[in-house]
């Protein structure tokens, strides 16, 4: 489905129908280069996966296929990646033992460098940084998928009750079973989140999955589960409540390479999966009728997108606890940076998410707070600033 190669297209293409013309072949996936047609009717017969706004693009062409990229996106992504790298080096170099950026880079790249520096940088600080990268990117991709799925800029995995489910699951493990074991809490959060998502899905499914019904049921189930968590929190002593509250804020501390392995594998798999879901999902943004007419299997795509979105959030929540706001803010910020027409641009969103979380973790280590507390503030302020700036300068 819709795996046609992207071709070079005339600028300002409109997919308008041409009355009176014979119906063009809708998806001629193996047809030769379209530009060699005698009279290139603008957009005739092409699936309107991309609407060209006349922005400058770069294209690599090879053997009939072309990879077309938006210049602004590439530049933005490059800038984001650079910022992540710089901040990463900065994070690795600061702490109770300070190292210069040069020492950090040497310790990272040269196995035979100063053993003390290597221990600090690679063994102690690197896992945490990598966790921040992975979690930030995963949350952002998940948020982008959900915002596209629900056609709601405020859409996030929270709305299908996932966060409240995993918090409930984790607090049952921590408060009712009295275990603070890392894996047990992660498993509890995973089970709770998955159960909540499944419950919401089943309750909202009624001859199809209407996005609006999904949101309402998500809110209802989420509210019910949160109150169960609150009940548990009220019934225990302050010490235990503090443990749960800290987990609930989302913390990256105390993570090593042993925890990183599974998370990284999961991240790679899920990212590849979400890449597959992007194109049909963007087509669904035009409305089910239009998308189905283009050969998108709406129900299947929605199910697949929901699954991968939930799985990405689950990955993060199980590893570090619920980190708020990255999923919500990162796709929005990336969309504004790239001036894209959809939030579902995986690479810019992921890089933005990673940058947010690395920045937040840098600040969190200075302030001795869980990183989730900082993401909420940083992300919130940034969104507020973007909002203010956008409306102050434009229109």
């Amino acid at each position, binding site marked *: 489905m819709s795996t046609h190669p992207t071709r070079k297209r005339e600028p300002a293409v409109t997919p308008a129908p041409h009355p009176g013309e014979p119906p063009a072949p809708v998806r001629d996936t193996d047809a030769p280069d379209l530009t060699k047609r005698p009279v290139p009717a603008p957009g005739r017969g092409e699936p309107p996966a991309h609407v060209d706004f006349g922005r400058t693009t770069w294209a690599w062409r090879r053997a009939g296929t072309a990879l077309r990229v938006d210049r602004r996106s590439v530049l933005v992504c490059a800038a984001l990646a650079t910022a992540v790298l710089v901040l990463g080096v900065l994070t690795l170099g600061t702490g109770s033992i300070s190292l210069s950026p040069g020492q950090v880079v040497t310790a990272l790249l040269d196995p035979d460098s100063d053993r003390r520096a290597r221990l600090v940088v690679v063994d102690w600080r690197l896992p945490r940084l990598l966790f921040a990268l992975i979690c930030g990117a995963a949350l952002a991709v998940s948020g982008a998928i959900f915002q596209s799925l629900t056609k709601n*800029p*405020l859409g996030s995995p929270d709305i299908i009750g996932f966060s409240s489910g995993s918090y409930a699951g984790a607090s049952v493990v921590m408060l009712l079973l009295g275990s603070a074991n890392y894996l047990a809490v992660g498993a509890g959060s995973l089970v709770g989140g998955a159960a909540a998502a499944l419950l919401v899905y089943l*309750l*909202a499914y*009624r001859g199809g999955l*209407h996005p*609006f*019904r999904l*949101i*309402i*049921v998500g*809110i*209802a*189930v989420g*509210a*019910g589960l*949160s*109150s*169960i968590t*609150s*009940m548990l*929190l*009220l019934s225990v002593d*302050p*010490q235990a*409540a*503090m443990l749960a*509250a*800290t987990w609930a*804020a989302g913390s990256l501390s105390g993570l090593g390479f042993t925890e990183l392995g599974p998370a990284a594998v999961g991240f790679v798999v899920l990212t590849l999966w979400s890449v597959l879901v992007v194109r049909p999902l963007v087509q669904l943004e035009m409305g089910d009728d239009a998308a189905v007419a283009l050969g998108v299997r709406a129900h299947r795509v929605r199910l697949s997108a929901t699954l991968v979105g939930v799985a990405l959030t689950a990955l993060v929540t199980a590893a570090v606890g619920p980190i*708020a*706001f990255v999923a*919500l803010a990162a796709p929005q910020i990336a969309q504004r940076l790239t001036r894209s027409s959809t939030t579902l641009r995986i690479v810019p969103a992921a890089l933005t998410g990673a940058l947010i979380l690395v920045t937040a973790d840098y600040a969190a280590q200075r*302030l001795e*707070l*869980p990183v*989730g*507390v*900082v*993401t*909420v*503030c940083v*992300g*919130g*302020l940034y*969104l*507020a600033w973007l*909002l*203010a700036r*956008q*409306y*102050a300068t*434009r*229109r």
Partner: protein
Amino acid sequence: MTTASPPGGNTIARRAEPGPYSGTGLVPRHRHRFLVLLAALALLLAMSVLSLMVGARAIAPSTVWDALFHFDVSVDEHAMVRELRLPRTVIGLLVGAALGLCGALIQAFTRNPLADPGVLGVNAGAAFAVTFAVAVLGLTDPAAFVWFALAGAFGVTVLVYTLGSLGADRATPVKLTLAGVALTAVFSGLTSALTLKSLATLDIMRFWGVGSIGGRRLDILTVAVPLIGVGILVGLLTARSLNALALGDDSARALGVPIGVTRVAVVLSVTLLAGTAVAVAGPIAFVGLMVPHVVRWFTGPDQRWILPLTLVVAPSFLLAADIVGRIVLPNGELRVGLVTALVGAPVLVALVRRRNVSGL
């Protein structure tokens, strides 16, 4: 009100509804709504009486009557009704009405059916101010929280409105919602930062953070009643303008609705209502979100019906939740903020499955 002709949009919405609703479509619409309003009032009365009767010790209706109108100091049950259950019921009525109307106003105003008082930053502001009072100033007396909660709610709402009004086209609903979400996040982050720094703060805040209408003193009412009264009045006055705004800003402007005045009035009303309710009872979720939805299924999209009916139904719901909380755990009790969610969630799911969801 009963003579008001139903707007055209409602007819369309009703006609579009399939299946189970067609039976009541035969009744003239305004009569149907009037009956619903009467039923809601009866329900409210019943819930108020039940709230006085039911509890750790059940008290007979005749004793409740005597306690209210032939008060005898020597009778324990009379004292119980007057000093514990009457304040609780009155506060429940007040807070419920405030939360419900507030939710209905915000949903109509932002044209976002999922909006609730939390959206405009009111709850986050109140929570932050109370946490600040506990963590930094070292206050522990819940009576003192009221002023902080109010101040926080007002402060953050003003901030949200300022941020949302930047730019040429002033405070549109979308901008306000986004500004509210952004600042809510910031303040909830600050709140948890303060909370996680001190065990004592966390211990107080985890109890305040779950709404309750029990154990409040009646002197809170001298502050709360005027504030909520003004909020209700201003809110109800905006109903006509909100109907016009539902058609979009341009149409509303063409109809002669003063958009700017309406927005300021709604924000003022919402802040008064939600701020005071949170100050008195702590954040109680779900009432403001759910009740207007349920009401809309009965009334259609006319705000002149939605707002008053919400004002009646929401306190019934809150009192019912409070009563359930008292029955479920006979020794100790389930706080009303928990019950609203636990009872409300299945109801909302059932309603959303049974019928087409009402958009705005």
